[in-house]
């Protein structure tokens, strides 16, 4: 394959090939296909502003997590505790504010500090032990799954923390994290704004800053990255803390939306976050991917969920559909990555970087 690319071919490659080779394209095509499909099934309710607002509701919190988890995956690691942490952070705020009588905002900040600590410990253990993050964070996941139920039952004698909406400051916190607002005749949620802002900032960091190229480098080839002076450990720990921070944000959104925190909240969601990132073109082995793609992955999830409800199917089919989507997305991604390798195959000497780190996405 190396010798095949001749000069004629390189010219014809052009912009089209570059677009095809960007990590988001598989997800984008997938999103379009699913959207058109459900628009055909439910033409009255799905393809309009109300339908869009419904899609964006589940997509927003999932998207925030997919962006953070996507960054972590590009950096070559997993975080299986990201789902349960959305429950732990919400429960912590509820327990502190409702049962310990601490000021709501102090509770919110304490919960954030706690999430940062957990993220740091996750990252520190991964870089120190050099064990797979899959195992380390699986342990964290189990620990907090137990803590969530155990502590909640000890304190409340129940399995949930109710009454968060009776605390002074609740309305403001709800407005900040996850409340409804009207726009163009439909109801949206403030979580959507968080998602858009976070996705744009994360994409800018990833594609336009030194930290972004570090993330690609530590995920693509940590030894080479270390040799060229990239602070591999700090980048990885930072990525785990980012994921925990995102989980805290989603935990706040969930707790204030639901006016209560449930000890089972978030369990099992970690795989959904990873799936969204993978559909969005993040490679499981690291070094390649896009947070815009991960966001589109979250959109696909939202379209599918709402589309199935609007179509009147029962949710029995949801996971089958999701499985097919995942498979198609991965096939598309494999294909586009092959194309990406062709586009970037260095034939002429002045080609700057091989395909490994992939920061020059047109977005």
């Amino acid at each position, binding site marked *: 394959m190396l010798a095949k690319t001749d000069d004629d071919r390189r010219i014809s490659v052009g912009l089209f090939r570059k677009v095809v080779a960007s990590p988001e394209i598989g997800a984008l095509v997938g999103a379009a*296909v699913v959207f058109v499909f459900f628009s055909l099934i439910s033409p009255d309710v799905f393809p309009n502003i109300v339908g869009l607002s419904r899609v964006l509701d589940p997509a927003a919190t999932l998207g925030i997590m997919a962006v953070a988890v996507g960054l972590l995956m590009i950096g070559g690691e997993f975080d299986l505790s990201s789902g349960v942490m959305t429950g732990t952070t919400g429960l912590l705020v509820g327990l502190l504010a409702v049962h310990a009588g601490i000021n709501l905002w102090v509770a919110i900040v304490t919960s954030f500090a706690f999430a940062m600590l957990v993220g740091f410990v996750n990252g520190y253990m991964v870089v120190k032990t050099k064990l797979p993050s899959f195992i380390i964070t699986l342990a964290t996941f189990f620990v907090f799954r137990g803590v969530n139920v155990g502590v909640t039952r000890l304190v409340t004698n129940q399995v949930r923390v109710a009454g968060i909406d009776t605390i002074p400051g609740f309305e403001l916190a709800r407005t900040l994290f996850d409340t409804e607002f009207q726009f163009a005749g439909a109801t949206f949620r403030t979580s959507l704004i968080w998602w858009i802002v976070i996705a744009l900032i994360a994409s800018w960091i990833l594609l336009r800053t030194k930290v972004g190229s570090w993330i690609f480098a530590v995920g693509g080839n940590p030894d080479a990255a270390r040799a060229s002076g990239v602070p591999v450990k700090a980048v990885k720990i930072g990525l785990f803390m980012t994921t925990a921070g995102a989980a805290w944000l989603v935990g706040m959104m969930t707790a204030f939306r639901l006016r209560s925190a*449930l000890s089972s909240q978030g369990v099992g969601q970690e795989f959904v976050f990873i799936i969204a990132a993978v559909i969005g073109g993040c490679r499981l082995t690291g070094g390649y991917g896009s947070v815009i793609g991960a966001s589109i992955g979250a959109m696909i999830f939202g379209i599918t969920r709402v589309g199935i409800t*609007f179509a009147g199917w*029962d*949710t029995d089919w949801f996971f089958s*559909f999701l499985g097919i989507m995942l498979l198609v997305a991965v096939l598309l991604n494999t294909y586009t990555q092959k194309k990406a390798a062709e586009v970037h195959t260095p034939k002429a000497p002045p080609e700057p970087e091989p395909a490994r780190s992939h920061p020059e996405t047109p977005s």
Partner: protein
Amino acid sequence: MKTRILIFSLLVMAFFGLSVSAVMAQDGLSFCYVIHSDPAGSFWNVATAGAQAAAAQVGADLTAVGSLDPVQQAQFIEDCIAQGVDGLAVSLANPDALRDAVGHAVEAGIPVVTLNSGVDVFRELGAITHVGQTEFVAGQGSGLRFNDMGVSHVLCVIHEEGNIGLEQRCDGVADSFSGTVDRFNVASTGVNDLAGTTSTIQDKLTADSSIDAIITLNPDVGVAARDAIAAAGSSQVLATFDLSPTILQAIVDGQVAFAIDQQQYLQGYLPIIFLNLYNVNANTVGGGLPVLTGPGFVDASNAASVIALSAAGTR
């Protein structure tokens, strides 16, 4: 290759789409049935069958969905509101979490009937009525039965975290039972890994020989407990909430002492009928009070007559 993948995925989705859109074509009223669980579980599929039968009888479209995650359940409700359905039947296992979504439905003029869980809050939320059994009372009834059987130490097996109704059942048992009631959390395996649940219960029985009765809160977990008792070689009195064909047979065979039947078929069926009556005849059923579907008790005296119906999926 890419085109082939695209065509393949389109074909697969078209297959799903056609097979479903063929089912739902008629005009008329449309109702949403949103529960706090997978609609296909062995308990819920009976209730869902009731809702579907009622919708078919009144010629209405039915969207039957559910999720254990309260965020998703709230989103399902919002989806239904966006669709402009003519009625909402919803189980309120986590009332706080669904307060806003149900409120939106009421504001949008959509009649709401709560089912299964939510008896304490349905009126406050503006629902027409609630269809279900009172969990605490059902628990009390089982506690009294355990008293009559002369047992002294009951294990109350909780298979789902975050379901207030399950806690209330155990509270009810503890309230009327004269001996000790211990709660035992098996949610880590629950109904998703019944083999794991069986061995966990077995270990508990082996570890604490003073336990002489078990009450489970789900028929699948009841079967797991039956197997656990057999595997541990012990002889606890077993009772369970809710029926399944296996549990009924176990009652006939003397392995299960009794089952608390909340007749969940009615919890799917009646809300749809009530919502239809509200739409076509402006009727409100219940007079502001809940419509109770239980508790009924099934034991060796009446199990045989219920077996045939259970196999048909309506009990």
